[in-house]
């Protein structure tokens, strides 16, 4: 096993692409080290990306925000401008693990770990976040929902690295929110979760919406029918009822020790409604 800390993205990509055996990218390590310890992965090469310039920075750009792949979630929570623009994304990222884990874990790692229950991913999907992927054949930008393809699996090819997550500049009268169900208040994995992102017109009518569900299918679900249930309406009881019904119907969950299929379906609808209510209020809706 080798550990390297490349100082450029080209070097990191080259090392990953050229590695003969399995290679792993290390940012916060809160998934990787646990999997190595458990014997689930045995990388021949560990590429620590924290030395690459820009990877540990949150940048405000003309288009919005660029969150480097090595930025710990604790740092997201300390960025007042980001928190104000994207409170749902930040509150989701802040739910991952403990204080100790927050100091290390990253939203890029949460995305690439490809757990259906990843907390930050439904919020990122709802936010329409994009991932900048660097690879041997150049750079491409893809929707975050295109990254996980199943539990523990991603669409990234050998040698590819996500270098940053992009969030758009906030349109006026917009708000987002993320909620999860867990049996305790801290330090647990979502039984089911929902992220909602809304933009309103001047009259408080929803003109854009994205709704995503976590732990409800093999990958985080973007529920387009849920958006359709909201667009063109105010968030009244009828809209909320329709949203809950559509979300419950869109779930393809499993039965496991954390929750049954029936429970997950029901709670997905409830959480989507509550997250929509918070997002609506944050967007200035009344």
């Amino acid at each position, binding site marked *: *096993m*080798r*550990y390297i*800390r490349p100082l450029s993205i080209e070097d990191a990509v080259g090392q990953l692409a050229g590695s003969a055996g399995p290679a792993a990218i*290390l940012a*916060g*390590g*809160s998934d990787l*080290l*646990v999997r*190595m*310890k*458990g014997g689930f992965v045995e990388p021949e090469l*560990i590429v*620590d990306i*924290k030395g690459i310039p820009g990877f540990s920075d949150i940048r405000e750009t003309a288009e919005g925000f660029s969150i480097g792949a090595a930025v*710990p979630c*604790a740092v997201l929570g300390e960025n007042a401008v980001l928190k104000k623009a994207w409170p749902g994304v930040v509150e989701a990222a802040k739910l991952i*693990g*403990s*204080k*100790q*884990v927050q*100091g*290390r874990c990253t939203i890029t790692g949460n995305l690439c770990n490809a757990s259906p229950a990843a907390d930050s991913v439904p919020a990122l999907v709802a936010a329409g976040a994009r991932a900048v992927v660097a690879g041997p054949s150049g750079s491409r930008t893809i929707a975050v929902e295109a990254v996980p393809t199943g539990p523990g699996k991603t669409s990234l090819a050998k040698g590819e690295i996500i270098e940053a997550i992009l969030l758009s500049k906030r349109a006026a009268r917009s708000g987002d929110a993320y909620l999860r169900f867990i049996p305790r208040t*801290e*330090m647990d994995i979502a039984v089911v979760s929902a992220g909602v992102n809304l933009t309103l017109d001047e009259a408080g009518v929803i003109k854009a919406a994205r709704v995503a569900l976590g732990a409800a299918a093999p990958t985080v679900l973007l529920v387009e029918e849920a958006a359709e249930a909201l667009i063109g309406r105010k968030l009244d009881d009828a809209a909320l009822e329709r949203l809950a019904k559509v979300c419950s119907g869109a779930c393809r969950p499993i039965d496991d020790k954390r929750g049954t299929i029936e429970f997950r379906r029901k709670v997905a609808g409830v959480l989507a409604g509550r997250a929509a209510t918070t997002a609506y209020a944050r967007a200035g809706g009344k």
Partner: protein
Amino acid sequence: MAGIAVSTTINGDAVEYLCQPDEPLLDVLRDRLGLTGAKEGCGTGDCGACSIILDDRLVCSCLVLGAEAQGRRIETVEGMAHGETLHPLQQKFLEHAALQCGICTPGFLIAAKDLLAKNPDPSEEEIRFGLAGNLCRCTGYDKIVRAVQDAAHVMKQA
């Protein structure tokens, strides 16, 4: 076997060591450097017994590679007391009997130190949330919370 040469700073002292690429910092601290304050409870970042402060961030040392400490600044429980004088948190843990077996205590002390550095006047709720990444299986948490509250009070007056 050769290893990766690492130069780092631990509790203010320059330290150098060799480690293996997959060796957790916790193992380096305990087995190579003799700093056995940080404990291995779970080894998977759930219990907080191995908590240390790395460049002003509270982390689990079981989830950091020894190789990653190159050029960084580490604080462990061994650096809390000044000679024979205990840190106020250590003194208050003793006075409030906020420990029984003691395995979790170094992690709680470091996590509480980090908490008070960032929030010198935390509410009970903030203490409970701030220490949620540290598990204690014998004392229960009330005495720990009271010790931290008392230490915060003393530290504010200092």
